[in-house]
């Protein structure tokens, strides 16, 4: 089997892990076991924002995506793309239809009714993850999760429990936890605030005044019905700038009004819910260090959600590949086909992150936060060949 050959080759080339890390792994019960599995999961973006009120307008619906890669441990580990089933659940956040009015307005916004507690792609709040044969991982796309736990507490970082079962016997063979981050901390009200009116009304009125539209009388409005939005796969209207270009362009000269140290958090979540909470943040980097400033993001030539920062723009190391050519970090593989996010974590939450929830998976499988860098997480014996970072070596 090609996979096995590949992983066997990798095993031959892998380096000895740091002795201390191996010691921790052993102490945590990661001794080699026959036919044992490990599953590593990550959210696709590190933060999904949504609104808490869809009665007047919609920028983004409740929509979240989590990936899980299943690896059969061994001297030559195998990435599993069959023989197992994978499912997800959100133990503290099991339903959404009592937490947002999205479903009351979905028909008007999207032109089609969306079943309650089901996202726009048909995914519910728990269920099976489907195999992505290209990525060779399992995915749940469009989970309609909100940042409110069932008990009423705000929780922008709910932990999904992901369970892998033997497809034949149904026996649970591996589990993991991964953050499914979501926030509605979009503080448009910092500027869009007219006494006696809602923030959405203020926004729509401004749009009407500046662009000659009549959105106030067309509520609820889906921004992407005119402005193309790759996040929703919406083509928009000819001649109308993309939502990203329009939003960033219109606000370029206005962000000083927010009064925030990081003005990106006036619109993106957020001062409290920290879209960026990764190791880069700990090193003092902010949004613009990777994404550029408002003018750059507003460039109409930019393809939003596609033209994104590349790790290789800053990181370089001989024989290391920091994304696959032409592929974003979140979709790239390395190290014999392991998804980058499986080891490093979600974009914006790469480990070690500032949040314990984001570090939970790495801490559990190897005893410490940060990238999964302990060989024995997947290998049942210590490889005696140098570690390689690229897909192929």
């Amino acid at each position, binding site marked *: 089997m090609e996979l096995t050959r590949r992983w066997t080759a990798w095993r031959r080339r892998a380096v000895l892990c740091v002795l201390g890390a191996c010691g921790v792994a052993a102490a*945590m*019960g990661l001794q080699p076991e026959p036919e044992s599995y490990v599953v590593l999961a990550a959210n696709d973006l590190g933060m999904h924002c949504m609104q*808490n*009120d869809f*009665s*007047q307008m919609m920028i983004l619906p409740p929509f979240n995506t989590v990936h899980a890669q299943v690896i059969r441990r061994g001297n030559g580990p195998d990435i599993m793309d069959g023989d197992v089933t994978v*499912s997800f*659940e959100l*133990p*503290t956040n*099991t*339903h959404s*239809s*009592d937490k*947002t*009015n999205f*479903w*009351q307005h979905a028909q008007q916004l999207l032109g089609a009714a969306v*079943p*309650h*507690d089901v996202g726009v792609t048909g995914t519910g709040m*728990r269920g099976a993850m489907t195999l992505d044969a290209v990525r060779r991982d399992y995915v749940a796309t469009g989970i309609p999760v909100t940042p409110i736990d*069932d*008990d*009423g*507490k*705000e*929780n*922008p*970082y709910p*932990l999904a*429990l992901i*369970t892998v*079962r033997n497809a034949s016997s*149904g026996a*649970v063979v591996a*589990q993991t*936890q991964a953050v499914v981050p979501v926030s509605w901390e979009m503080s448009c*009200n910092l500027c869009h605030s007219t*006494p*006696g*009116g*809602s*923030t*959405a*009304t203020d926004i729509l009125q401004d749009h009407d005044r500046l662009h000659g539209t009549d959105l106030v009388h067309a509520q609820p409005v889906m921004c992407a019905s005119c402005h193309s939005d790759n996040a929703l796969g919406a083509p928009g209207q000819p001649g109308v700038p993309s939502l990203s270009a329009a939003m960033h362009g219109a606000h370029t000269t206005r962000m000083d009004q927010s009064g925030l140290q990081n003005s990106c958090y006036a619109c993106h979540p957020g*001062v*409290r*819910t*920290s879209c960026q*909470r990764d190791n880069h943040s700990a090193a003092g980097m902010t949004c613009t260090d990777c994404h550029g400033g408002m003018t750059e993001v507003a460039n109409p030539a930019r393809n939003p959600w596609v033209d994104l920062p590349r790790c290789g723009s800053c990181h370089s190391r001989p024989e290391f590949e920091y994304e696959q050519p032409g592929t974003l970090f979140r979709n790239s593989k390395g190290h014999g086909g392991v998804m980058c996010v499986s080891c490093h974590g979600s974009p914006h939450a790469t480990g070690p*992150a*500032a*949040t*314990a*929830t*984001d570090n*939970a998976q790495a*801490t*559990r499988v190897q005893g410490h936060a940060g990238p999964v860098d302990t060989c024995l997480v997947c290998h049942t014996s210590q490889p005696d060949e140098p570690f390689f970072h690229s897909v192929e070596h």
Partner: protein
Amino acid sequence: MKSTFAIIMAASVASTAAAQTYRLVDLGTIAGESHAFLVSDTGRVVGSSTKVSAHFVGAELGTGPASIGGVPGYGETAVFAVDADDNALGVSYSLGGLITQAFRNDGTSAAALGGFTPRAVNASGVIAGTAHTHDVNGFVLPQACSFSGGVLAMLPTLGGVTGQAFGVDELGRIFGSSTTLREAASRPCMWSGGVARDLGTLSASASATGQAWGAQGNGVVGASQNASGIFRATRWTLDSGGAVVSRVDMGGLSPTTPSYAYAVNAAGDAVGTSGFHAVVYSAGGAVDLNTVIEGGAGPWTLEKAWSISASGVIVGDGSLLGFPRAFALYPCSGACCDDIDFNRDGLFPDTVDIDAFLSVFSGAPCATPSCGDIDFNNDGLFPDTMDIDALLNVFSGGTCVR
């Protein structure tokens, strides 16, 4: 008190929920949004509110918002319950953290109770909640728990690895949800005598999901999925041994609209949400609370009714001009007057409100950004000196007169 509660308690009648009208009161905010999770039978309202830093603090609501201190060192606090000794029970936690700290605040200081979220307490002091425990495999999983006599006890599951608890009745039975073997489903669950019991759902499917939230006598309320997979407010009736003898769909704003019931009072009236509108459940089904407010809901949308007191006062979460805001609904008995905070400055009872009312009554503009209307007793007649009588009567603790 702050006496809005005393006034209303004296005037309120809890019955015939379908015909009941209510006076809507904005419970305010410390600085930002607010949520009201509980109104006790003594009329105390607690919840959470953001403060200037935008973090959530425990909040005393209904008497002009004030913070309730939690355990230091955590970013957020919410208060969910009040015990028989009038101590506030809440949780302090940090966004993105794995540890929560329950506390009991006696009005002076907060004492830590342990690593869980207390969601309800009964008259005997038995607390129901959810802990986040590290299992033997290193997972941090929610577990239903009870806290009594200083002892935190984890409750068993229905065979799975997770559970949550939301309510406890006077018999000490705890209500919530638990997953079943191999995480096949998250089922409505009752714990009694340390034993977990699956209450079943409106669907016959073993994979249907549900949650139980509270009970009054032999009636348990919550929500469960029906045969169409829609969550519907559910009332389980138990026999004397605690076995389920019936499960009833309590209704919703339409037959296909999801509905949930979170609390039930001594009269058997339950509250919750349906179609993201706050509702009260009666024998006739769900009543949209937005439609039974004296004078109308105005800029409000009442979204979620979390709690109902013995006297029928309802509190919950709403949207005021798009912002999350805690509300209270006070049952009207006969006539229903406006809020005595006429000048909307958050201070009441306050003689400045009387001055403001008389000023507006005589034709002057409102001196504050917002004032109530001069038809104080909502009889449709204005200007009318009976409104002055009504204001003074309510202000002094009397009933609304027309």
